């Protein structure tokens, strides 16, 4: 039985159980999750070709007037669901309602990712052969290449949300392609990586030749990379690094559960100028094809696009259901879970700076002495104090308006977020969104996100 038939078959029973819960509680829902996929990973002489471990289960959630109570189960069958509902009705207390639960009435809806070339239309052998052939070709590009990790992942993310008024189902397909090149000159080992993560089909299976060539070229350059002298620099950041800045700077700090916890400085600056007037920033789950997109979030909210910063003015944040209720703000579709086993939090989706008018060449030409940050790595938020930390894998020196070829690695960006954003003096016309990464909340709760932007020019501290 396929996933859609399964959920349609069990729906009348689940709806009955939700109706039972709603006689006692103020709001209840059932979220079903079934994530499957295929992994093809070639790493030197080793191959890993397998289904990836499925996520299959569900969560029943109720609001008792004061707080939410949830039961997560891996056995999604009538017996288990009925037992959970009986237990909740018998043991979960109910209180006077403190906050009203906002929910749109949408009825029954089914959403599916469009695949231009359906993944199931290509034979497994063809997919594997392509990865093997490509890995061999990459390995021959330079004798300093010691290993090539070539990853192809198909992800089928199926979720259904059942509440009093809604029966929503989404069937999302995402393809992840990733290469990591490990190089050595006998004295040290370095690596570089790149890839694509897009919702869609086999049309994203091919990594562009120039992406592969650049990844190899930069990996080799890293063997001679030096450590940057710490100080304040004029910086041009690639769209990938700009995306990391968007994500870490005013992404985490505008997740509104952080407002409730008094952990976000942004709560005090809504409506104020916190960035250069050149800066406009969005979080949007509605971007077609981007890896952080969906049709509804894990609390049943249809996908939305949120303008977080408008021409430098802080506009609003992103909500999960609890923060929207308690702060009495309009819900956005940012209630996301790592899986059915975890609670929802306010989380980002696709976060990016809007494009401007400058070109990358104009930006580099305008720098006398500075750094072009090419490749990002990881970052960490500090919404409470607007601190930022981003580790970049590759930066190249700029002198007299030209790239010199001198490479530094790793480079750490640190600073005070408003200072950094107010220093943005040029914004590129070349928006790119990249979705290779996952995002954690604190040090856990990993969800798929993307981030991006155009090239941007700014000034901050590097080390």
């Amino acid at each position, binding site marked *: 039985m396929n996933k859609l038939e399964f959920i349609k078959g069990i729906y009348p029973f689940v709806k009955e159980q939700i109706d039972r819960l709603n006689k006692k509680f103020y709001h209840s829902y059932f979220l079903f999750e079934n994530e499957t996929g295929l992994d093809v990973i070639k790493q*030197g002489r080793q191959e890993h070709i397998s289904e990836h471990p499925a996520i299959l289960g569900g969560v029943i959630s109720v609001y008792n007037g004061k707080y939410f109570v949830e039961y997560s189960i*891996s056995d999604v069958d009538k017996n288990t669901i009925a037992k959970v509902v009986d237990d909740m009705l018998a043991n979960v207390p109910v209180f006077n309602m403190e906050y009203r639960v906002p929910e749109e009435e949408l009825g029954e809806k089914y959403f599916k990712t469009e695949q231009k070339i359906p993944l199931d239309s290509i034979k*497994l052998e063809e997919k594997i052969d392509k990865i093997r052939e490509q890995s061999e070709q990459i390995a021959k590009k330079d004798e300093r290449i010691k290993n090539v990790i070539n990853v192809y992942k198909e992800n089928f993310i199926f979720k259904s949300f059942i509440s009093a008024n809604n029966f929503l189902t989404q069937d999302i397909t995402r393809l992840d392609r990733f290469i990591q090149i490990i190089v050595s000159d006998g004295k040290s080992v370095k690596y570089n990586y790149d890839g694509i993560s897009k919702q869609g089909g086999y049309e994203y299976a091919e990594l562009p030749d120039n992406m592969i060539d650049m990844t190899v070229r930069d990996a080799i350059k890293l063997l001679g990379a030096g450590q940057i002298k710490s100080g304040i620099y004029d910086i041009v950041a690639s769209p990938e690094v700009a995306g990391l800045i968007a994500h870490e700077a005013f992404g985490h700090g505008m997740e509104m559960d952080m407002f*409730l*916890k008094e952990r976000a400085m942004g709560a005090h600056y809504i409506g104020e100028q916190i960035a250069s007037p050149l800066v406009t920033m969005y979080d949007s789950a509605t971007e077609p094809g981007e890896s952080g997109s969906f049709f509804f979030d894990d609390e049943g909210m249809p996908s939305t696009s949120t303008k977080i910063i408008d021409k430098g003015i802080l506009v609003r944040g992103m909500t999960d259901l609890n923060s929207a209720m308690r702060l009495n703000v309009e819900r956005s579709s940012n209630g996301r879970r790592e899986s059915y086993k975890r609670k929802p939090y306010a989380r980002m989706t696709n976060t990016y700076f809007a494009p401007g008018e400058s070109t990358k060449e104009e930006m580099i030409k305008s720098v006398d002495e500075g750094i072009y940050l090419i490749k990002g790595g990881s970052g960490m*938020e500090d919404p409470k104090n607007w601190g930022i930390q981003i580790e970049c894998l590759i930066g190249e020196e700029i002198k007299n308006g030209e790239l010199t070829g001198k490479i530094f690695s790793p480079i750490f960006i640190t600073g005070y977020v408003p200072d950094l954003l107010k220093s943005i003096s040029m914004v590129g016309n070349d928006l790119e969104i990249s979705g290779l990464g996952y995002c954690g909340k604190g040090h856990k709760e990993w969800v798929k996100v993307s981030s991006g932007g155009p090239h941007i020019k700014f000034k901050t501290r590097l080390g």
Partner: protein
Amino acid sequence: MIKKIKEALNKNNEIYAWEIKSVESKSSQLFLIKNYIEQLREVNTVSYFVKIYNLHEVNGEKQLGLSLINIQHNEENIDARIESAIRIAKYSNNIPWEIYGGGDYYYDKNSVSEKIAKDRKGLLFEFYDKYKSVEDSIKPARYSSLELFATLNDIEYMNSKGVNETDRRTVFEIDTVVLSGNETKDMECHNYRKVVFPEMLDLENEIKKSAKYATDSLNSKLPKSGNYPVVFMEEPLENLFSPLVFQTSGRAYFQKQSMLKINEEIVDSANGDKITLKSNSNVKNGLKTTKFDEDGAPLQDFTVIENGIFKKRWNDVRYSEYNKEEHTGNFANIEIGTGNISMDEFTDDEETIYYVMSFSSFSPDPISGTFGGEIRHGYEVSKNGIIPVKGGSVSGSINESFKNIYLSKEKVLRGEYLGPKAVKFKSLNITGE
């Protein structure tokens, strides 16, 4: 269910070998914002992870294919899932290796908190009560959030060579955020701890320490820029030595990701303390104190680096065969040998020295060995006294920074790290003022 899966695997003659790992997990979770409950959760899951091996020939050479499937408790068509996995495994070409065949003795590890096994929800509310009782004592600091997770895992491993073992493990996680300050200046301290025995976690002390760090941060400044001695304590210790664990693995050697050579120094011309790195599978409350590893083999104690010299690689079953080296099993808890001097002496002869208790994020790169992070909580110690520092970054690399490393004689256990309570680098690059 496990019997059904085993029967289905055994009757299929295209399977060269198989492994099953079942994990039954029961977890209670409590979430608070400030001091009110936001959410209460119960999680009950059962999963069966099945590895299926297929031996086949390609151009006259034997190749091993491996496919992994996750079968649910109520799976109706096990045979079809297995057929699909075999079909995929047939396409996967690897140098063959043999799965673990048993023959070693398994020691029962003490990895179960009876409180978690018997009454998870009761335990959470016991911690909640303690948490509330401490609130007044940390003023003017105050609570932002608390998350508690109490989990019991029952694990069974079996394979086609007759290995069959069970293990029971508990995990307790606590995530707290404490705030201190006022409307004009407010600071936070985030603390995440993961242990086996909640009884061994001193909640009151953890919260009071967080309150002190948050309050101290109100008077913090940026560190100075330049090269300074830096002492790592608390949170950064959990990951500091992880690149060495990776670099000493058979996997890193086989995949040409390690430059370390047996019987040679791990860093050239080291002047500081020499590092000793051991796998220790018997640390009480250690997160890696488990009965068996991913291959079903008993976790063992062994030394990979002794006095700065790389002595031997650790190898799981697969890489032991690939590298034709001893099978040690996977790495257990990371034990680092302590040094000879007290951490109190680390400040001697230093004009200015920095102490870092936590970074915003700290994940040293396992391949390149580089590390760095933004200081979340730290102190500058100089003739001017002790000044809290926050912001700015510290960076270094194993190849260079470990040449002048000093290890305290005091010991600490954090997560899966057992070793010096304080680690001093004679010189690290700081980007600050």
